[in-house]
C-alpha cells in the first residue's frame, strides 16, 4: 500500500516535472520582452520610428565629444586662440598640444571618432530603411531623409578635418588617407565590415553627394531651422566643405545660395544681443539643449570658457573657466580704436573679466552663458550666416575676384563697427582670415582654418610652444580600438 502510494506520488511528481520542462520548451514562458527598450528589428518600420531615429542622431551631436564641447573648445585649445588656466586642469594638455590629447580624449581616447561613427550608422540605418516605410505625409519623409543626408555630410566632414589632411595641403610623406566611408547601416552582425581608409578626395566626393541629396530633399521653406537640418544650412555647409576642398567656385555658388535664404546676417545693433538670446538669430544650424540635457559644471562650454554666472556680475562664481583667450587674441580684438581710444569692434563685448573665485581672474569668452535660462545650458551654433560672407570672400579671393572678396569682408567688418577696408593682395587674404578668427573666436574655427591652409600654429611656451604644420599632432590619432579590431585601417603618421 505504502509502496504503491509512493510510486503514484513519484510518478505524479515526475510527470509534473516533465510537464514543466515541456511547458518551458514549447511555450513562450521563458520569453521576456523588454519594456523600456525596443527591439531593433522593428524600430525603423514606422514613420514615428524613423522620426525618433533621426532625433537619435541629433542627440549624438549634443555629446560633449562632438558639439557639446570638443568640436568648439578642444579645437580652440589646440589652436593659438586660447590659453588654459588650470582651474580644474581640464584642456591643459590639449592646449599644450601634448601627443594623444585631442578631440574626445578627455572623455575616452577616440570618443569623438566613436560618437561620430555611431551617429553615421544611425543615419545609414535610416537611409537604408526609409524607402520601405509608409509615410502619410511625403513632406515628412523628404524632411527626415534630407536631415539624415545633411547630418551624415556634417559628420564625415568633421571626421575628415580632425583625422585626415585637408585637400591640397597633405604632407605627402605622412598622408595615410581619409576617414573610412560607411554607407550601409549595421543592424545585425552580418553587416559589420572592416573598412580601409579611402583617399581624402573620395570622402569629399561622398560629402558632396550627401549634401546634394540633402538639398534636393529639403523643401524651400526653412521651417525647421535652426534646430534641425534645413536647406539653407545644407547650402551653407556645402560652401564650407567646398572651401576646404579648394573648390572655390562651388564655395561661392553655395554661399550665394545660402545668403539668399530666409535667415539673414545679424545687423550691428542686434549682434551682441544675438549672443544673449537662447537661439542666435543668425544661426543656420544650432544644436538645441533642453533643461534635462544640461552638460553640467564640469564640461559644458560655459564652465569651460568662463567663471561668470551672468554678464557684469563678478561676485558669483559659476564654472571653472578653464580655457580663456590669449592676450594676443584680445589685443587683436582691441587693435582698431576710435580717435578717442574706444575699441571699435563690438565683438570685444563678448569677452569680459571673470571672477577670482577659482584663482586669478582672466578675460573670458562669454558667448556661452546659460543662454537657455539655466547655468551651463546653451544652444550651440554649428554654422552661422557670418561664415557665408567670409567663405565667399576667401573663395572669391582665391578665384581672383578681389572686388567681391573685399565687399564681403567689409560686410563683416562694418557689421562689427569697424570701418570698411580697402586692402588688396595678400593683406586682403590676411584680413579675411583675421576676421574669420575674430568672428568665430571660441566657436571652434581657428584650428581647422590654420590646418586647411597648411599654416604653422604659433603659440607661447606656456601653451606648449605651438606646432609646425608638418608635426604629426596636426592630425588626431585613429583610436586604438580601430587598429586592434580592424587590420585594414592605418594609423596616422607619428602615432
Amino acid at each position, binding site marked *: 500500500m*505504502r509502496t504503491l502510494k*509512493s510510486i503514484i*506520488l513519484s510518478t505524479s*511528481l515526475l510527470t*509534473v516535472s516533465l*510537464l514543466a520542462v515541456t*511547458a*518551458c*520548451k514549447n511555450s513562450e514562458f*521563458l*520569453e*521576456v520582452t*523588454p519594456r*523600456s*527598450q*525596443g527591439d*531593433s528589428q522593428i*524600430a525603423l518600420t514606422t514613420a514615428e520610428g524613423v*522620426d*525618433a*531615429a533621426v*532625433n*537619435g542622431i*541629433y*542627440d549624438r551631436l549634443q555629446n560633449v565629444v562632438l558639439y557639446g564641447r570638443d568640436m568648439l573648445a578642444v579645437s580652440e585649445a589646440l589652436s593659438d586662440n586660447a590659453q588654459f588656466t588650470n*582651474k*580644474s586642469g581640464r584642456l591643459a*594638455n590639449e592646449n599644450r598640444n*601634448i601627443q*594623444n590629447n585631442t578631440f574626445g580624449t578627455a572623455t575616452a581616447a*577616440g570618443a569623438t571618432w566613436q560618437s561620430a*561613427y*555611431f551617429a553615421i*550608422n544611425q543615419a545609414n540605418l535610416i537611409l537604408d530603411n526609409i524607402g520601405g516605410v509608409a509615410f502619410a505625409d511625403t513632406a515628412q519623409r523628404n524632411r527626415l531623409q534630407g536631415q539624415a543626408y545633411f547630418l551624415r555630410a556634417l559628420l564625415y566632414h568633421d571626421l575628415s578635418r580632425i583625422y585626415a589632411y585637408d585637400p591640397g595641403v597633405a604632407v605627402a610623406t605622412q598622408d595615410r588617407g581619409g576617414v573610412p566611408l560607411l554607407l550601409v547601416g*549595421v*543592424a545585425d*552582425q552580418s553587416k559589420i*565590415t572592416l*573598412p580601409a581608409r579611402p583617399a581624402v578626395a573620395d570622402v569629399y566626393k561622398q560629402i558632396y553627394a550627401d549634401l546634394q541629396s540633402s538639398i534636393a530633399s529639403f523643401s524651400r521653406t526653412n521651417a525647421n531651422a535652426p534646430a534641425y537640418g534645413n536647406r539653407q544650412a545644407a547650402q551653407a555647409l556645402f560652401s564650407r566643405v567646398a572651401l576646404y576642398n579648394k573648390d572655390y567656385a562651388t564655395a561661392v555658388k553655395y554661399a550665394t545660395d545660402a545668403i539668399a535664404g530666409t535667415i539673414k546676417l545679424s545687423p550691428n545693433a542686434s549682434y551682441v544681443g544675438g549672443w544673449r538670446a537662447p537661439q542666435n538669430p543668425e544661426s543656420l544650424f544650432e544644436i*538645441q539643449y*533642453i*533643461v*534635462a*540635457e*544640461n552638460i553640467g*559644471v564640469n564640461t559644458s562650454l560655459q564652465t569651460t570658457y568662463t567663471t561668470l554666472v551672468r554678464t557684469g556680475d563678478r*561676485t558669483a*562664481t559659476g564654472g571653472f573657466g578653464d580655457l580663456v583667450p590669449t592676450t594676443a587674441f584680445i589685443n587683436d580684438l582691441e587693435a582698431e580704436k576710435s580717435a578717442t581710444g574706444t575699441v571699435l569692434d563690438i565683438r570685444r563685448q563678448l569677452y569680459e573679466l571673470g571672477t*577670482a*573665485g577659482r*584663482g*586669478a581672474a582672466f578675460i573670458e569668452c562669454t558667448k556661452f552663458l546659460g543662454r537657455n535660462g*539655466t*547655468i551651463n545650458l546653451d544652444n550651440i551654433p554649428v554654422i552661422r550666416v557670418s561664415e557665408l560672407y567670409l567663405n565667399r570672400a576667401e573663395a572669391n579671393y582665391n578665384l581672383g575676384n578681389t572686388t567681391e572678396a573685399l565687399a564681403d569682408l567689409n560686410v563683416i567688418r562694418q557689421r562689427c563697427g569697424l570701418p570698411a577696408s580697402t586692402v588688396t593682395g595678400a593683406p586682403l587674404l590676411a584680413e579675411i582670415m583675421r576676421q574669420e578668427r575674430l568672428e568665430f573666436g571660441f566657436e571652434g574655427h581657428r584650428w581647422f582654418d590654420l590646418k586647411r591652409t597648411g599654416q604653422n600654429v604659433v603659440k607661447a611656451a606656456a601653451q606648449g610652444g605651438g606646432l609646425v604644420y608638418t608635426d604629426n599632432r596636426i592630425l588626431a590619432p585613429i583610436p*586604438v*580600438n*580601430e587598429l*586592434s*579590431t580592424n*587590420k585594414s585601417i592605418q594609423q596616422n603618421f607619428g602615432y
Partner: protein
Amino acid sequence: MRKLLLGSWLLILLFCLPALAQDVAVSGRVTSSDDGSALPGVSVQVKGTTRGATTDANGNYRVSASANSRLVFSFIGFSSQEVAIGNRSTVNITLQADATNLGEVVVTGYGGTVNRREFTGASSKVSGAAVSNLPVGSFDKALAGRAAGVQVTSANGVPGGAIQIRIRGVGSISAGSDPLYVVDGVQLNTSNNSSFTSSNPLSFLNPSDIESIEILKDAAAASIYGSQAANGVVLVTTKRGKAGKTQITFNYFKGIADPIKQLDVLNTQEWIQLRTENLVNAGTAADVARSSVLSTLRLPTSLTDADIAALPTYDWQKAAFRQGQTDNYEIGMNGGNEKTRFYVSGSYYTQSANVINVNFKRGTLNSTLTHQINSKLSIDQTLKLSTITSNGQFGGPNGGSFLGAAAFSSPLILPSVAIYNADGSYNGTPALGGIPGILNQNIIQVSELNTIRADINQFVGSLALNYKVTDNLTIRPFVSLDYRSVRGRNFSDPRTADGINVRGRVQDQFNENKNFLTNVTANYNKEIGKSDFGLLLGAEYRSDINENLLTNITNVPTPDFKYASAAALPVSIGGTWTGYRKGSVFGNLKYNFNKKYDLSLIGRLDGSSRFGANNRFGFFPSISGAWLISEESFLKGGRYVSDLKLRASFGTTGNDQLGSLFNAANFPGLGLVNPGFDYNGAAGFAPSQLANPDLKWETNQTANIGLDFGFFGNRITGSVDVFQRTSKDLLLPFNLPFTSGYSSISRNAGEVQNRGLEVELNTVNVRAGQFQWKSSFNITTIQNKVTKLYPGIVPLNNPDSTILLTYTDFYGVGRNAILGRPLQPQYTTDYAGVNPATGRAMFYDYAGNITYRPLIPRDQKYFGTELPKFYGGFNNTIVYGGLSLDFLIQFDYGRRSFNTQTSFLAENAGRNFNALQSTYDRRWQKAGDITDVPRAYNANVEPNSVSGLGGTRTLEDASYLRLKQITLNYDVPAAISSRIKASKARIYIQAANLITVTKWTSYDPEFLNFGSGNSGLVPNSKTYQAGVNVTF
C-alpha cells in the same frame, strides 16, 4: 509552469492520508559531554527515513522506529552519533561537544542536511555566533577571514554598505562574480539598486538571527543550483524555535568608531612655498609666482614673509571625520511544544560612520514558525521584515567620488582656508564665491546641508509544506517572495555649490524588486542491506522583476523646502522595467555503502529568459565521491587518527549573471534600441546592442580533491582542498570597430582558470580544567590566469605583443584582461624615479632605457594584479571559566592597486590641491638629490614629458594584516544572574580593526578593489563596543 507547480500543491494535499506506521516507541534523554546538562533541540532521526523528533527543554525525546533501525542524533556544535536501537525502548545519549569535525551537519540546499561524514563536496561552515554582535550592517562583512576560499572585500566603510564576496577566486571576465545567496530557502536578488547611497541587499538580515552559514564551494556542493552556482552558494539558516520553556533574550551593545588613519598633509606655509616652487620651476618669475599663489589663496599680495609665517592652518580632515556611534537593541523569544515551535525577534540597530552625515539605521522583525499538523504534515514558515534608512555621501553605489565626498576632499582642500567664519557660519559658501583652490566647495557645509539618503524596505518570506508520504518519502512544496523597495533621495541644498545655480535640486528614486520563487522537491531514502540510497527530485520556477522611477527637479523657494512639490523646474523623469524568468528541474542521487563509501550524482536543467533563443536550456551535472578511511579496519579505533575522509568531485556549474549589476540588464542576447536619445523635446532612440541569439551562460568546470581529518581525539581537525576551477564560455565584449556603429558585441568565448589550495585547521591547544585555548586557522592561495580571449584581438604594438582586452565589468568598472595573466592586472609604464640632475620624472621604455615620454602601448608592462596571492584568517578563543577571549587576525597578501586617493595628494601642489607631507619632504629640490618624487612642476607635466604621476608611481602594495576583531566575554555566574531571574547573562567588550599592518599609504587598504579606485570612499573604522546579553 507556475500553474503546474502551484497545482502540485493540490496534488500533494490529495495524498494527505493518516499514517499507517507499525513500530516500537523509543524514548530517552540527550545530554552534553561538557557539563552533563540536558540538550534541547537535538535532532533525533531514524536512519534511512525522514522520521524523527527533536528533544524538548529537558533533553527528552520520543520517537517510533522499527526495532532493527538506527537512530542518528545531531545538533549543531556537537558530534553526531548513530546508535542501533536493538530491543531497547530507552536510548540515552551523551553528545560530544566539538564545533568543527566530521560530526557537524552540512546544509546542502533545498531543505537538505547531511552529516559531514557523508558529505562529498567542499563547503565551509560559519556559525551565527561568529557574525553576530559585531559593528557591521550585514553578515557578509563579518565573514572575512572566517572560511577558506572566501574572500571578503568591503567596497567602503559605509555602515551597511556594499560588500564583495569571491568564492575560490574570480571566474568571470565581464559577467558577475557574486555567489548566490539563499536565506532559509529563499534565493535572494542581490543586485544593488540604490542610486544615491552605497547599500547592501544583505543588510536586511540581523546577523543575530543567523544560526549558521554554509558556503558551498565546489561543483559537487553547488551544482544543485545549476546556472546560478558558478560563483559558489552561500546558504544562510536562521534560528528556529526549540520546544520547551519560552526563552526570552535581550541583547544590547553600544560602540564607538574612530577613523583608522588620517593623512598627513602640508600646513599653510609649506603649501605656499611648494606651490610657488611649482610655478617657478615652470618658468614663472619668483615674485610673480609668489603673488599669484597669494592671490589664489585670496590673500593680499603685499603679505610679508613674517605675515605668511603667522598664517593659520586649518585641519579639514578633523572636521570631516568624527567619532561614530553604534547602538544595537535586540529582543528574541523562542519556545513551543512538540507540535508548534516559534522563534521571533526584533532589533533596532543604528550606526554612524566616522565621516560626518553618514549613518545607518535598521529595524528588523523576524519570525519563524514550525507546526506539525499531523504525523504526516508539517509547515515551515519564515518572515523577515526590515526597514533601513541610510544617509550617505555624494557618490555612486560603490561609494567612490570626488569633490562632493568629504573623505576625498578634506585632505585636499588648501590648508590656509578656514572652515568656519568667526561667527560660526560656514566660510566660503558658493554665494560668496566658494573657497580658494580647485576644490572650492566647503565640504563640511556640503556634507551637512545636503541630504543623500536611501530608505530600503524589504520582506523575505517563505512557506513550505512537508508531507511525509511514507517513512521513506517526503514531498515539499515551497513558495517564497523576496521584495525590496528602495526609496532614494538626493537633495542638493540651494546654499551649496551643486545647488546654488539651479536654486536647489531634488532627486527622488523609487525602485521595486519582486523576486518570486516556487519549487517542489521530493526526497526519497531507502536502506537496503549495507546500502543507503537517497534521491532528491525537484522542479522550480523563478520570476524576478525590477522597476525603477527616477525624478530630478530643480528650483526650490528656500532651503526649507526639500521635497519635489516645492521645486518649480522639472529636469527629468525616468522610468525603467527589467525582469527575467527561469524554469528548472533538478535531481540528486546519493549512495552510501557500508558507512564508508559515498557517491553523489547531481544534475540540473535550467532554462532562462536571459539566454539567447538558440541556447535557452543548460544542463549542469556533477559527480562526487568520498571514502571514510577512518572507518576502515586498519585505522578504526586507532589512537591518533580519529577521522579521515577523502573526497573527490568533478562537475559543471553555470553563471547567469550576464549584463550589468546596476542596470540589471536581463536581455544580453537581444538586438536593442535604447530610448532617451531625445532631441529638442522630442523622443528619440538609437541602436544600443547587436543581437546574439547564441548567447548563453558561462560554464565552470570544477575538480576538487579534499581531505578531512581529525587527529588525537579530534583535538586537531581540519580540511585540505585542492581545486581547479576552469571557467569557460566566458562572456566577452568582442570589440568592434567603432565604424560599425557599436563598440562591442557579447559572445561566449573567454576562459579563466583558478587553481587553488585551501587549508582549514582547528586545534584545541590547551584543555586543562576550566582553561581552554582553541585556534582555527585558514589560508587560501589561488592562481588566477586568463587562458583564452577571443581570437583576432590584434596584439598590442609592443615587444611582448600583449593580447589585451579592454572591457567594462559587471560592476561598471573599466578593466583590462591580458592573455596569460591574472584578471584585474595592473598594466602600465614603469616609473624609473627622478633624474638627479634635473628633477624630471623618468620612465623605463620597453628595452629598459630611460625615457621621459614612454609610449603607450609600446612601453607598458604587467605589474601585478588586484587579486591577492593568498588570504585567510587566524582565530583564537581562550576560555577560562566564565571568561573567554576571542580574537581574529585577518590577512590578505599580494594585491597591487593604484592609490587614486593619494595620487592627487602626490601631485605636490602641481594643481591647487594640498599635498602629502611625505611627498613634499621627498621631492627633488636641487641637482644631486636622489629621490623618487620629481620636482614640483605646475600642472605636473614638464615640457616633452608625460605626467610625473603616471606609470607605476602610484601603484602600491595593498597587502595587509589586520587584527580584525577582539572580544572579551564574561558569563555571569548563575548565582548572580539568577537574582534577576535570568537563566544566563553575559557581558562582552569588543574592538574591531584595532591594528593594521600595511604599506598602503591612503586611509585603508581594505576597500580598494570593488571599484575603479579608492578616492572618496568612506574608510573603515576602528570600533570599540560593550554589550550585555541576558536570557530569561
